Structures are given as structure tokens and as C-alpha cells.
């Protein structure tokens, strides 16, 4: 147990929790906007893995994490554009297309990796951190929470930006209407398809960014299937948070925190089945959001393509 009491170990655990939470936060916030606008974006896992691959390629060749993030976001947007075309513009089934995109992108990125990196497995250097003055000097919490790459702080700040957009702006109202009563939005003279398309593209950017963060900062490399279901976890967080960005943040942090708790339990030598320990993050997120997120509701037109004049 002595290892558990060391400040470096506790700091590493908390640092790991934040690192694990950020991709889920970005994906969850993105998915939340799609869902608000009425699009169930099952393809987010594909957007994440596209972002992870292009993010890594961008960072590796440019030697710049920021260009990597930009490339990752662009990759997510490219996949999202397909989703928007097929599901929002043409009105195909959102679940089928989302799954197809995910499977296709997993295969494509695995193939590209095979030709490009499978003999060399290049790895990025550790990401540069931006310590927050004073706060980063706090024992344990400082190095764990306030010594991260700048993108981490921006991701957390995005939560409040999203809250502001949803509560205070016309865009937020339009998104809400596109998900709840798209016909009413149409009558008001706002283009429903354009609104939903913008939401899906935003989702792609956020998911791609999350994938790029996962590959570049979380792992420092790209391997096939690296997202390992993180996109689907983002969907779960968005569904359970039901329109509330703060709950996505809470869910992501709880999930990341529980991942670290599972590591701590194992390092402490707790001799209980690992499968039980590993269930903890999922159980905790579900319990928290089911208990506290019940009053919110999902958009009425979620998953239903909009067709003007259709009944």
C-alpha cells in the first residue's frame, strides 16, 4: 500500500483520469449538439478514429501538436460531411449510416497505418504542458490538474461556451427547435437541413479533435482501432446528459476518475476479479446520470430525418 501513499503516484492517477476524460468530453459535447438538432450521430466513433489518424499524421510530419489537432478536426469534419450528406440531406437511416461510417473508417485507417507506419511505429514526444501559475504548485492536485496541454483547458472551457450557446443565443434556439419541432423552425424561415448539417459538422470537428487528442497526447502514437469504443462512450454520455453540457463534463470526469480508481485498486493488490473492478466506470457514470439527469429529456425528433411537408 505504500506506493499508493506517494504523491507522485496519486498525481499520476489524477493526471491519467483527466487524460482519459478529455476525448470523451470532446466527443460527448459534439454528439450532444447533433442530438439537440435531431441527428443521432452513431458515426462518431468513425469520426474519432479519422481524427486520431489524421491528427497523428499531422503532428508527426509537422512536428506540431496544434497542426495535428487541426488535421484531426478536419478529418472528423470530412467524415461528418458524409454523414450530413447521407442522413440530413438525403434522409437515409442515421443508425445504419453511422455504423457503416464507423466500420469503414476503422478499416481505412487500419489499411493506411499498415502501409505507412506498421514497420516503424513512430511515436511522438511527450506533449508540452502549460502550467497554470500558482495552482500548478499545489501538492498532488497541481501536477495532476493544472499541468496539462493547453487543449485540455480549452476543452473544459468549451463546456461553458456550449452552455452559453444553448441558453443565450439564437443558434441555440434554432438547434433546439431543429431537434424538437423542425417543422416550426422551418415555418419560422430557418433552414432545418442547414441547421442540422452545421450541427453534424461541429460534431465531426469535436470528435476528430477528441481522436487527435487520444492519439497524440493520450497514447503518443496511432495504431488501428485505437479509439477502442471511446466514440460510443461519448454517445452514452450525451444521451444520459440529455442536453446539459455540464453533465457531459461530469460524466467524462467520473468515467476517467473511475478508470484511475480501478488502476489504484489493482496496484493496491485488491484481490477481486478484474472484470468487476473494470465495471466501476460504467456503473458510476450510469448511476450518476440516471439519478441526477432524469428531468431532462431527449429531443422529440431525434433520429427522424426532416422532410418539408411530410406528416
Amino acid at each position, binding site marked *: 500500500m505504500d*506506493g*499508493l501513499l*506517494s504523491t*507522485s*503516484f496519486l*498525481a*499520476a*492517477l489524477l*493526471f*491519467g483520469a483527466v*487524460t*482519459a476524460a478529455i*476525448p470523451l468530453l470532446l466527443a460527448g459535447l459534439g454528439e450532444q449538439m447533433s442530438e439537440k438538432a435531431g441527428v443521432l450521430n452513431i458515426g462518431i466513433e468513425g469520426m474519432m478514429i479519422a481524427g486520431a489518424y489524421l491528427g497523428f499524421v499531422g503532428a508527426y510530419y509537422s512536428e506540431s501538436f496544434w497542426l495535428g489537432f487541426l488535421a484531426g478536426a478536419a478529418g472528423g469534419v470530412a467524415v461528418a460531411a458524409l454523414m450530413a450528406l447521407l442522413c440530413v440531406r438525403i434522409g437515409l437511416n442515421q443508425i445504419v449510416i453511422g455504423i457503416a461510417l464507423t466500420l469503414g473508417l*476503422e*478499416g481505412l485507417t*487500419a*489499411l493506411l*497505418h*499498415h502501409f505507412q507506419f*506498421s*514497420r*516503424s*511505429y513512430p*511515436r511522438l*514526444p*511527450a506533449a508540452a504542458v502549460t502550467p497554470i501559475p500558482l495552482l500548478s504548485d499545489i501538492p498532488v492536485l497541481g501536477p495532476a490538474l493544472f499541468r496539462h496541454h493547453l487543449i485540455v483547458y480549452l476543452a473544459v472551457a468549451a463546456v461553458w461556451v456550449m452552455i452559453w450557446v444553448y441558453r443565450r443565443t439564437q443558434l441555440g434556439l434554432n438547434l433546439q427547435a431543429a431537434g424538437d419541432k423542425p417543422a416550426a423552425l422551418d415555418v419560422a424561415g430557418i433552414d432545418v437541413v442547414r441547421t442540422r448539417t452545421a450541427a453534424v459538422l461541429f460534431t465531426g470537428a469535436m470528435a476528430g479533435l477528441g481522436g487527435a487528442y*487520444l*492519439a497524440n497526447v*493520450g*497514447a*503518443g*502514437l496511432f*495504431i*488501428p*482501432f*485505437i479509439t*477502442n469504443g471511446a466514440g460510443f462512450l461519448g454517445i452514452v454520455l450525451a444521451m444520459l446528459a440529455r442536453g446539459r453540457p455540464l453533465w457531459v463534463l461530469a460524466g467524462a470526469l467520473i468515467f476517467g476518475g473511475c*478508470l*484511475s480508481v480501478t*488502476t*489504484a485498486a*489493482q*496496484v493496491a*493488490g485488491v*484481490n477481486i*476479479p*478484474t*472484470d468487476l*473492478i*473494470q465495471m466501476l466506470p460504467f456503473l458510476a457514470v450510469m448511476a450518476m446520470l440516471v439519478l441526477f439527469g432524469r428531468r431532462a429529456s431527449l429531443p422529440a425528433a431525434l433520429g427522424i430525418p426532416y422532410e418539408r411537408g411530410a406528416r
Partner: protein
Amino acid sequence: MRNTFVTAASAVVLSLALHASALGAEISSIAILTPEEGTDYGWNQQGIDACKAAAEAAGITCEVAQGLGYGDVRPALRELSEDGAGLMIAHASGYNTAAPEIASETKTPVAIVDTPQGLQKGLVADYTLSGHEGAYLAGRLAAKMSRSKHVGIVVSGEPPSWNAQSAGFAQGVKAENGDVKITYAVIGPAAYSDAAGGRRVTESVIAAGADIIFGQGNGSSFGMLQAVETTKAADGGKVYFIDVIGDKTPVSKGFLLSSVVWNITPIYAAMIKDIKDDTFGTKHYAIGLTDDSVKLLKTDQIPDDVWGAVQKIRDQMISGEIKIEPVFEATAVRGLMTDVSAAAQ
């Protein structure tokens, strides 16, 4: 009369065919299905290389279906069977349900892993391999070289093969020095491609004091490698990595201490022979130190005197002076981490 002749002739042909079948079968090709690409310097690559080598030795071909992921491989199995594969090697524990089903459906023999109880004569063979003897040597090596007297085991799942190696490593560590602490951590239930998780958990184990990591993880092992390359040990020095199954020397940056390298070729060659001899699905296959199908990798990071000492232990194991029994159950493995001294003979 004509009908009687045709019926009789058909019966003769059928009985001859059945008789030939009962005596065994000639095959012209085998196939292997892997969840990830065969370029991982590990499980997938070793399997594919072994399939090709065994097929070449037998004068037949090896069809490779790689990067199939961990989902449903039934369509791929059916297609390979239709293409004429005489043996399909389902090279992932996640294929254990689908492969026997397709074997029953197509009557094409399959080989699966981590299911010793799943044998079906002529149809299903299991090759739950264990490099526990090599892992024991790795444990002895780690205990000799650890500066902090604290080593870590990080795994991305708990399949029987890896459990046996985790246990073997722990037994080796304790046999070498009972005071060395062992920290054991699983990334996730089946986190084979979770490189970020591999890095996160490994960094935590290093922060707990370990300076040598014994990692088993398929794709996620690259995350573990990244962690040892970018994280300092508690004393500010290097953290070393011991890999399994393959040889990552070409992609290491001086942090690879060793690897428990497997050679699966003899296993697949034996399977081909068993199909021909009609004994397929009736026995278990094993790898070990004796024929070098399991061996410890020598790298520049290992001093000559330490390597010499480890080789002496290897000789003792081959002669039977030191015996290590494989431990396949995860619960038993976790128990070993707290007190393994009694388990090592």
C-alpha cells in the same frame, strides 16, 4: 437394372470417400485469421509468420485474413472455407465461439485458442500456448536488474496464455529475490488496442515505483512502450520494458530490456500433420524452452554476466531441475502477486 448399378456404384464411391476421410485428409492450403495487422511485432505477426512457415514446410499455401477486428468473423471463416482452406486458424480468443460454429457448418477444421475444453475430433483443436517458462526467466532477469526492487506487470486482458506468463514472471521475480515488489494492473477487460490506456496504466505503475515493466498487450503494448520511453523512474533513471511473443527491437529506442519470444511454427506444422494422420482435435499443443519455441530475447541492455546467469537458469529448467507449472486462472494469478514464493518450486 441400370438404377441398381448406379446405386451400387454410388455406394462404393461414397464408402471409399468416407474411408479416405476416416484415414485423414490431404490439404492444399491453410488459413489464418487475425484481429490486427500482422505487423505488430507480437501475437498477430508471430501467428502469420508461423502459418506461412508451416505451410511452406508442408508444401502448401497459407491464406492470411488479417486486421479483422474483434467482432463477428463468421463471414470471413465461411469465405475461407469456400476458398478451399483445409484448416482455419482462428488466431484470437474472441473467435472461440464463431470458429467452432463454422467448423460444424462447413466441416472445415479450425484451430482456436484459450479453450482447452473445446476439442472436437477432426473439427476443433485448441492451442492455448504458454510462454510461462520464458516468463519465469524474464522474472529472474527483472529481479536481477531492478534498481528500485519494484517491478510491474501490465496486461490488456486476462486470457489464459497471458495469465500463465504473468504468473511465470511473478514466480521468477520471487525466486530471484523475495524482497522485490510486484505491481499487477489490467488495462481493461479486452483492451488489446487501447494504446492510450496502456500508456496511462503503465505511467501509474511507474509512478508507484516500478522501474521494469513486463507488458502483454498486442497493440496496447506500444502505449506501454511509449510510457517507459517518456517517463522517468523514481530515481530519475531509465524504465525498461520486457515484451512478450514478438521482438520489438526494430522499433525500440533503447528501452526494450528483453522479450519472451514465441515460435508457433512447430504448433501449426503439428496441426497439419494431425489432419493428415486423422488425429486433429485429439490433443493439446505446447511450446517451451527445450526446442527454443520459447526463448528470452538478448538485447544490448542486458549485461553479459546477468545474461550468463539467466542462461544457467534456463539450462536448469530444461534439465528439469527447476519446474514451473502454468497458472491459467486470473484469480490464481492475482493471488500470486501478493505471495508467489510458495508457488515456485
